[in-house]
């Protein structure tokens, strides 16, 4: 547990010192969503119709942008070797780093999401569902992302490879995340998409840390 706290605290400190990285993710999120708004034109009906899908898609792409560096920085400067030799279980290492990633990128996306949704004229009834679905969905993005980021370590053009690897896996999260918001806007019950997202979160939490830990051990060989 000592190791978990130490790694979590270190990663959060590094994220605060390198604020630019989180800011870039948020800026990407806002700009990509704005592109959609310009692309479909100013008609309020059209925008509010697609708002849920656009907010979710751009949030997902923004999260992806930050994942490449999750382990790569530690891998490049030798820290990953030292972490794996520090006596901390690799799974604990993955959990701590993934939680730190979610607390910075995931939470930042959550905070920015209402503003982005407002820009896309999401109807007022959709905001609650947007926040809940993002709250359940963004940790899944971080967990799956950790597996991908660990697998592409050491590969050339790892960023592109990471997108090819992760985007298909993100589809279920996108479908049910956007469905929750869509349902809330149309006045339907949103329990089902929440339940699926919750289930996916539990599944990701049980499988991803082990997969990522194994990939990390292979990466340093």
């Amino acid at each position, binding site marked *: 547990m*000592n*190791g978990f706290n*130490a*790694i979590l605290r*270190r990663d959060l*400190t*590094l994220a605060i*010192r*390198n604020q630019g990285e989180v800011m870039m993710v948020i800026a990407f999120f806002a700009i990509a969503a704005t592109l959609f708004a310009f692309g479909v034109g100013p008609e309020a009906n059209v925008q509010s119709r697609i708002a849920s899908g656009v907010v979710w898609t751009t949030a997902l792409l923004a999260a992806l942008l930050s994942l490449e560096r999750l382990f790569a920085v530690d891998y*490049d*400067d*030798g*820290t990953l*070797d*030292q*972490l*794996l*030799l*520090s*006596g*901390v*279980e*690799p799974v604990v290492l993955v959990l701590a780093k993934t939680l730190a990633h979610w607390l910075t990128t995931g939470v930042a996306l959550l905070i920015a999401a209402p503003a982005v949704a407002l820009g896309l004229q999401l109807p007022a009834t959709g905001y609650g569902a947007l926040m809940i679905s993002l709250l359940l969905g963004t940790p899944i993005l971080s967990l799956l992302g950790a597996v991908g980021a660990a697998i592409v370590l050491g590969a050339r053009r790892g960023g592109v490879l990471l997108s090819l690897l992760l985007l298909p896996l993100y589809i279920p999260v996108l479908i049910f995340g956007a469905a929750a918001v869509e349902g809330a806007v149309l006045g339907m019950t949103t329990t089902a998409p929440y339940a699926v997202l919750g289930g996916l979160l539990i599944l990701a939490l049980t499988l991803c840390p082990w997969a990522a830990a194994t990939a990390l051990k292979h990466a*340093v*060989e």
Partner: protein
Amino acid sequence: MTIENFPTAVFCGENLSCRRGGRSVFTGLSFRVTSGEALVLRGPNGSGKTTLLRLMAGLARTASGTLTWNSGDIRDDGPAHGARLGFAGHLDAVKPALTVQENLSFWAELRGANQADVTQALEIFSMAHLANLPGRVLSAGQKHRVALARLLLGNTQLWLLDEPANTLDDIALNALRNVLGEHLQRGGIAVIASHGDALLAQANTLDLRHFIQNKPIMAAA
């Protein structure tokens, strides 16, 4: 820092061979080091000194052969082997955004050392005046001293050092000699890859040239 001696230990490798990129690096390599002894690895560039150190750390995997610590296979408990070893490789694992003090405190926390240990380690490598400087402003030699100071945190019995004298000035080199001498005196074990001047007055030498894969079959015929 605890002054007490280490328990007697034996670190053995038997019939080790290793392949990298489909090419055999060395085969049939065996060694044995016990408490208070140092083993110096020699050999030309590419003869596998770094690879052997990473095998010994448990970071890389052997193609065949076993590595044992007190007759227990090191792969049986990776985290336990990590906890007993200090590894100083080519990469210094110093975070540019953290101060020297913060860098070392993080590793101290992971390895169960305290702030007094960090202060002492900084003093031993004459870095007390650098404690509050961020890692990004350090020179290569200073970063390397931080990496060496990390060895003193957490009471590790087995030190694996890859060209530890690189980039060090005379003062730091002397500090390293003293620290190594004390480590061995306490019953520690050190394996050092080096092709420069001897760091230690007496040490067993393992020349990796003897274990390079035999010539092609034609030459044998």
